[in-house]
Structure formats: C-alpha cells, structure tokens
C-alpha cells in the first residue's frame, strides 16, 4: 500500500497473548487508553505454551517483521507450568534464529500480568520501535533463495 | 586501592584541613586518593533545569577522567558530591543531556555515566567497613558526645543519591561509633542550615542554624561534625546562643587514627 512505501516503514507485528494474563493486560491497556502502534496485531491463545515455534516461523515466512509472545509471569501461569515450557522453547528458538543470522530484536518474550496495562503498552511501543529500527524483515524470507 | 579524587574549590582554600585530614586518614587506612588533573569547580550547585548543559560540563570532565583511569571517583565536599553524582545520573539516564554534553565535549569515547561516584564516607562504610575502621583506630574518642550534621546535600533526593535513609540516616552515627565516640541523635540533623542563602539572607540562615544547634545541644551533643564546608561556615557564623563547636568529620577521623599531628605539622 502507498502508505508503506511513501512514508516511514510500518512493520507487521504479530503478538501472541495468553488469555489469562497478557490478553487481559492488553485489554487493560485499551481500557486505560494507553496507546501503542497499530502495527501490533494480537492473537489470543489459551497459554504461552500453546505457541508452537512453527507459528512464529510461519508469521515470519508470511511477511511479519517481528513476533512477540506475552504470557503470565513465571509462577503466575493460569495452568501453573505452561509459561515455563514456553520459556525454554522460546529461548532455544530465539537462540537458533540468532544463530542463523536473524536479528534477535525481531523476537521477544515478555511476561505481562492482567494488571500490567502500562507494561503492555510500553513493551509494545518499545518492540515496535526496535523492529522499525531493524527495518523490513528480509533475511528470513530470503533464507532459502537460490543463488 | 586507588581512587580518583575530586577535592573541589573550597578544599583548596578555606577548607584545606578537610582535605588534608582525609588524605592522611586514607593513607592510614590503606587507600590512596589520586587527585584528578585539571579538575574544574563543579559550580557548587546542581543546575536543576533540564536544559542546563554548559553548567554540567566540569563535572563530566572529572567523571570522564576517572572513567579513563578505570577508577571510582571519590568526593568529600557535600556540594561537590551532590553536583557530580547528579550530573553522572543525567549522563547515564537523560538521553538528551548525554547527547548534547558529548557533542560539546568531543571525547574519544562518549561518556555515559560509567563512573561510580562515592563520597568519602561511603568509601569508609562500603569499601573499608566501619568494623575495619574501628580496628584501625588507635586513639578512640571515648566519651565524646557527637551530633552528626548531615544537612541536605548528601541525602536528598534520596532516590538518586542513594546515600542513606533521607529521614533517618545512620552513616555518620556509625562513623562516630567506629571512632569510639557516642553519637547523639537529634531530629534536625537532616534539616537544611540555609547555606546557599547565607550570602544574601543572613537573618534567615541564622534562624535555621539556631534550630539545628538548639536541637543538638538539647539532646546533649558536645559538638557537631559535618562533611560540608558551607555548612561548617554557616553553622559557625550564623548561630548565637547554644553554640556548639563544629568540626569536619575527617579531623576526628585523623585524630582517632593517630595521624592528626602529622597533618598539623605538614
């Protein structure tokens, strides 16, 4: 669209939010009118542990410039342990992406409770800013181009 | 252990003894104060305005020099400590000030608040330890009842200076105990003496000082100690009535460590 080419770069950002804490935190950011860029689109999942690394890679493959996963704080998971598994999975996935040369600023995990509307909004603002500074995500898309 | 040392203007003139006793005591305690070269006066008052840059540069120079030497920066005068510590915080956390100051200074490597600023008392508490100090005391000041006078510059704003509890500080009291004397706790030890206005509003600063002196002597202090040349001047100058002697804490430290004589001779 014209807005993307003409004006500043507007990244596509997918945010996976767990239903119990982070999605509610995003709702609180909304009801407190704490703004963050419209570039962020939230997908509701029951728990951070529902997020398959394949979803994240899929998003990148389909043109996302950044993917963020938000869940309950460790110890506060609605399902007790979900975010602990998510934490290990994401640590390894992010490390792998870093290993293959994808900028590590494009991925992030943040624990946001239902009460942390402010944190949700500042996190999103920061993350969008970071991804904007990295520019369009070309590496993941190009990884397999034949040369 | 070597520290970079920022004496400040008054310690070179009216308060030479504050400086001399500190250096002698440091030697006795096994650390060295290495005066930084080409230090400039800090200005004596922290410029609160968010748009003040030029007035902060002298502090930045001192901070950067310590950084280049890889040393912590030690201060002695309360005002210098206050100014340098707050400027350091600006350089660390205020993006705008940091950028503009660095643009102006054109340092080889930009300064971003890397230096740790320590007051001499903090060195005693956090690096030497009051227990160790106590062991090194050769001439304890037994029987002396001493009121600590903190004033405002060392304590506030506490979130930034992180010196001690702003309303109920204990560092100088602990120091007094370490040198063998008895601290006298009185409520106005953290009230301002009005030092800054003592030039033009002499009556006002007199009221402030009287309140402090009355409180301290009311609780039985024989003397006050301070780290601030301005407080010392003001308390001596502006009070009448229950007037207690005021000393620099370093003088008592030197005395307790048995190095006071050597300073006096020098």
């Amino acid at each position, binding site marked *: 669209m014209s807005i993307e080419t003409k004006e500043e770069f507007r990244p596509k950002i997918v945010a996976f939010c767990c239903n119990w804490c982070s999605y509610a935190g995003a709702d609180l950011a909304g009801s407190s009118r704490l703004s963050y860029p419209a570039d962020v689109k939230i997908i509701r999942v029951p728990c951070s542990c529902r997020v398959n690394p394949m979803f994240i890679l899929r998003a990148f493959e389909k043109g996302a410039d950044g993917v963020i996963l938000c869940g309950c704080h460790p110890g506060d998971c609605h399902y007790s342990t979900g975010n602990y598994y998510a934490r290990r999975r994401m640590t390894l996935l992010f490390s792998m992406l870093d290993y293959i040369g994808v900028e590590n600023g494009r991925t992030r995990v943040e624990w946001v409770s239902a009460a942390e509307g402010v944190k949700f909004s500042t996190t999103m603002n920061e993350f969008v800013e970071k991804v904007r500074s990295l520019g369009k995500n070309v590496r993941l898309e190009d990884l397999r181009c034949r040369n | 252990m070597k520290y970079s040392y920022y004496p400040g203007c008054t310690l070179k003139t009216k*308060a030479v003894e504050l400086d001399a006793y500190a250096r002698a005591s440091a030697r006795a305690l096994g650390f060295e104060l290495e005066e930084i070269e080409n230090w400039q006066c800090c*200005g004596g*008052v922290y410029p609160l*305005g968010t748009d003040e840059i030029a007035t902060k540069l002298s502090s930045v120079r001192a901070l950067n020099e310590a950084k280049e030497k890889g040393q912590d920066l030690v201060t002695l005068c309360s005002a210098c400590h206050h100014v340098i510590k707050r400027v350091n915080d600006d350089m660390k956390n205020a993006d705008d000030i940091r950028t503009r100051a660095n643009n102006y200074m054109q340092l080889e490597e930009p300064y971003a608040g890397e230096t740790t600023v320590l007051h001499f008392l903090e060195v005693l508490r956090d690096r030497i330890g009051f227990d160790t100090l106590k062991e090194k005391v050769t001439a304890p000041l037994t029987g002396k009842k001493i009121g600590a006078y903190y004033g405002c510059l060392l304590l506030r704003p506490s979130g930034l200076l992180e010196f001690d509890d702003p309303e109920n500080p204990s560092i100088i009291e602990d120091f007094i105990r370490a040198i063998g004397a008895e601290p006298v706790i009185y409520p106005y030890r953290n*009230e*301002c003496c009005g030092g800054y206005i003592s*030039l033009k509003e002499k009556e*006002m600063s007199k009221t402030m000082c009287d309140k402090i002196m009355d409180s301290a002597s009311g609780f039985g202090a024989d003397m006050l100690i301070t780290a601030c040349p301005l407080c010392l001047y003001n308390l001596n100058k502006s009070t009448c009535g229950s007037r207690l002697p005021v000393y620099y804490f370093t003088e008592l430290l030197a005395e307790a460590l048995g190095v006071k004589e050597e300073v006096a001779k020098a």
Partner: protein
Amino acid sequence: MNTPKKQAEMIKEISGVNPLKCMKCGKCSASCPSYNEMDIKPHQFVSYVQNEDIESLVNSKSLWKCLSCFACVERCPRDVKPGKLIDAARQLVVREKGGDYLMADEIPELLDPELPQQLLVSAFRRYRR
C-alpha cells in the same frame, strides 16, 4: 515578552515538572524551612503555574528564599518536585536581561574572612547568568 501561557510552558519544560500530578496535600509547605519567609508558598507554586500567573511568580520573593534543600522534593507523595518549579521560575528571571539578583559590586561588603569559595560560586550560579 512571552505570553503567560508560553512562560508557563517554559517553566514546565525547564523544570520537567507536571503540575497535574499534584493532589494539593501541602506536604511541601509543611516541610519547607523557609515557609514563613515566602510570599508565595511552595504548594501554591504548582497552582500559579497551572493558572499561568507567571507574572506573580517571577516577582515573588520566594524565589530567593528557597534553600534548594529538596525537603519538598523528597517528601512529596506525588513526585511533583515543587523545588524544581521554584528553580525554573528563578531561571526564567536570571536568564532575562537585567534579571541578576546579585551584582558584582555588592560582593565586597558581603564577604568575611571565613566565607568559603563555594558560597560565592553557587551564589553566582543561582543569582545570575
């Protein structure tokens, strides 16, 4: 001369204080050692800025009575920092031409033998530009 609105904005900008955070509890005035010498009291500074009555503020003798002791800043439960407002108002005055509060020729009579350098230095910083 700037409009009062612009001056108020300048004070807010220089001080970095948001007067809207004030809940008007008066703890600043309760803490201020110079309270009795001030014509405009510490807690009122906030409302003067809010009401854009900068004229009264810059002509207030309170500017010169503030000790910069930060008791108000330390104790403010709302993190408003009234002391910074006062300082910003003082800056507004001394940065104006002819706004100096201390003249060089006043100094000799103010001096005494024990007077520490830093008092003069800081007085210059506080009272003139």
